[in-house]
């Protein structure tokens, strides 16, 4: 019997795969290792120590920035997920009509417009609004994050809805469920994994954002990534590595949490 075609038996496959893995993970591994360096450079190993984690923990600006990131991300992700859920329902529960593709593009705008363009535009608009209203709190960052997170929340939710069988909702209506109860008891539970995935993506994308945040933030509104960016312009100590390591652990924790949540649901 002929062996089935498998990309794994192609010449060079293993090599390319290994190179990719090294490029992806070797720098990260190095970064994590040097977070535990006793010395004050990120290039020479001088023994194991937790001093940079302690230093970071005592640095109030880092704690501030972290807390700010952890405030913005969940709120923005929540808003984005709610909007994306409604958008996904509206764009999948309908017969295709001319203009639907345009709507997809419209919703996914943040994926296509260069981020720097959006950032500059928001800077201009928000600086005007700040002058008019006198308000300069976190609201602007939250709104901006919510807006660019929508497509990240939208795509998994739509994907989930598209694979969902419409007859299930019809069956619920046939069994005396009014429209709201059909949604609560059938549609929502079935699209829940998609919503969780969408929320998680939006959360991580918000947590990670630099460009738009850098332009939109007012003075003293550094998030963790923009703080780190600012620090990198000065002397680089393993404190950066320590922060990055914690940040990495946080992201992995969030992703794993949602992964297990959504796996349990299906």
């Amino acid at each position, binding site marked *: 019997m002929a062996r089935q075609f498998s990309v794994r038996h192609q010449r060079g496959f293993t090599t390319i795969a290994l190179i990719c893995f090294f490029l992806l993970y070797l720098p990260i591994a190095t970064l994590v290792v040097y977070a535990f360096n006793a010395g004050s450079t990120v290039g020479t190993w001088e023994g194991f120590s937790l001093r940079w984690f302690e230093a970071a923990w005592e640095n109030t600006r880092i704690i501030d920035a972290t807390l700010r990131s952890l405030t913005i991300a969940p709120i923005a992700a929540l808003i984005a997920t709610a909007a994306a859920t409604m958008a996904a329902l509206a764009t999948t529960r309908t017969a295709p009509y001319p203009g639907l593709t345009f709507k997809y593009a419209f919703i996914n705008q943040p994926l296509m417009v260069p981020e720097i363009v959006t950032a500059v535009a928001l800077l201009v608009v928000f600086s005007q609004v700040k002058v008019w209203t006198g308000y300069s709190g976190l609201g602007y960052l939250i709104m901006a994050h919510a807006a660019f997170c929508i497509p990240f929340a939208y795509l998994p939710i739509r994907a989930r809805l598209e694979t969902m069988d419409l007859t*299930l909702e019809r*069956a*619920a209506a*046939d*069994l*005396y*469920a*009014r429209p709201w109860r059909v949604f609560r008891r059938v549609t929502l539970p*079935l699209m829940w994994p998609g919503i969780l995935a969408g929320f998680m993506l939006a959360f991580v994308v918000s947590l990670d954002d630099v460009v738009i945040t850098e332009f939109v933030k007012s003075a003293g509104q550094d998030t963790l990534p923009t703080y780190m960016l600012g620090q990198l312009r000065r002397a680089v100590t393993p404190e950066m590595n320590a922060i990055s390591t914690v940040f990495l652990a946080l992201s992995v924790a969030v992703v794993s949490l949602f992964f297990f949540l959504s796996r349990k649901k299906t």
Partner: protein
Amino acid sequence: MPSPAAAIDARGVSKVFRGDGSADLKALDDVSVTIRENEFFTLLGPSGCGKTTLLRLIAGFEFPTEGTIRLYDQDIALLPPYLRPVNTVFQSYALFPHMTVGQNIGFGLEMQDKPKREVAARVDEMLRLVRMEDLKDRLTSQISGGQQQRVALARALAPAPKVLLLDEPLSALDLKLRKEMQIELKRLQTETGITFVFVTHDQEEALTMSDRIAVMSKGRILQVGTPRDIYDHPEQRFVADFIGEANLMTGEIAATTADVAQVRLVSGAAISATLPAEARPTGKVTVMVRPEHAEIVASTASATLTGTLESTVYFGTDTHFNVRLADGTAFVVRRQNDRKEGRQLDPGTPVGVLLAERAAQVLRD
């Protein structure tokens, strides 16, 4: 006999699907039909004839373009599905994958805000009815196709609907399971006394299960009747052809009495044939004879029809004789087999075909 109440009464129902750009599609064209209380009523017809559309109009998933649909004395044509005391068994079962078997069956009652204890009791009753007591707490993805079928039935029957709609519920099952479920369905219908409207394109299924059958074609109902009516007295060529096998011959009406006509065939032979209801055709007509209602003989002397035997095909239970009649038309005779030898007819020999009184049926044009 007092005529039983009408469970469903559709009058002049049409359904047009607006085509995008191209022509509109008339899925149902002026359909009128009365479905009686407690009957097992089957919609039978080829793919695309509008069976599902009619069912969906009764369920409330679509609304008629024209016409009225009454459920007992209530006009339901424009009611949403959740206000109709009608339940559906879907072809794909459409069981809720995030609920257990028990929760699926209880869903309808729960949505009617029945007390929890009543729901629980009814769920157990339904599980017993479809013999699934052991699987109450399984997820629907953890049971077999046949079991899913039973759960779908139990779920639709649990709220005790006035009418149960079934859209080709057996088509996903293999032959053996299908035969079992046919018997099961019939039992459920008798035990619950609920009116069943059953859709199929399998004529044998329709004949064996139904109290009455409506034969559909191209958005119209051609004939409604008991399986015997439909099989023995098809009124139209399409019905005769679609259900069972039919020999068709042309002839001329010589004389008619109450419901029987004397027809002179092209070959010159005269036969008696039953007439379609309320029809008094004259002149040229088509008559139909079922292959098993004719008899083949070796002598042509006193035969009604004569011709040449072209071939014989052995089917185990019976044998088909393909005869070419004197005037050139093909005619099939079916004879039940026994274990006696002899009486062999050889292809190429002249044969005679005997028709019993009223073996033929005159078709409408």
